[in-house]
């Protein structure tokens, strides 16, 4: 089994109200100089086979990400 990490993020240009709310809260706590905040998700998978990254990409295309509003990144930590 190979550990694979998938990161799914809202696409650039798609409003991220969660990120905006967190940015506002950080400002209220006195953290100056925070620019854009974007919130996505990290999915950790254990995948068998010789092409775990390829399999993870297919999983992203078919289920894990909605490519209309989200981008994904597949990493196999060394």
């Amino acid at each position, binding site marked *: 089994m190979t550990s694979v990490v998938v990161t799914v993020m809202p696409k650039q240009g*798609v*409003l991220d*109200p*969660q990120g905006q709310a967190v940015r506002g809260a950080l400002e209220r706590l006195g953290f100056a100089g925070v620019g854009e905040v974007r919130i996505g998700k990290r999915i950790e998978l254990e995948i068998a086979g010789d092409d775990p990254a390829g399999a993870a990409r297919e999983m992203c295309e*078919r*289920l894990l990400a*909605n490519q209309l*509003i989200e981008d994904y990144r597949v990493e196999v930590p060394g």
Partner: protein
Amino acid sequence: MTVAVVRFPGTLDHDSARRAVERLGAPAVWAWHADPELPPGTTAVVLPGGFSYGDHLRCGAIASRAPVMADVRRHAERGGRVIGICNGFQVLCEAGLLPGALRRNATLSFVCRQMELEVGDPDTPWTAGLPAGATLSIPVKNNEGAWYGDPGEARVVLRYRAGNPLGSVDRVAGIANRAGNVMGLMPHPEEAADPLLGSTDGLRVLAGVSG
């Protein structure tokens, strides 16, 4: 005529949806998410609201890949009528049967209130007998109801009349595919189906399941 009301694990509004359909005089039957096919003789499909699969991953994402959805797709491609309400709308978008996606409300809050809607496209089965601009009073209750997409790819059937509390592109409350036979909306027509509920306007939309 038989209207199949589909239930997924976590569907909540199936009873009220079925009751509203039956109020229109349409016989209704249940369909289960794991069924390989819709019940025999199905002429229209209702995907009711709720929290299918606990809203995990994305609202509607897992339900849209459930076994029964393959037959819902075939039914839609044959021109059969399909209406998705709230979570059902999310399922139809995730299934690619309607364009766009539903995102977190701009307010980041659950919105539950009666809404005034205006008819944007009178030439659909779901707006039969209603002129463009007609007002319908139907409640919304959702957390992920902001439609995002290109209105040019859809028929905008219903818009929020005053304001845009969820943050939808183009004030979209409900859209149909180009052919008009597949409809999705965030407001709940089955909760505006009895004078006791304060409005029967939802029946005007749900009447699209017949014929």
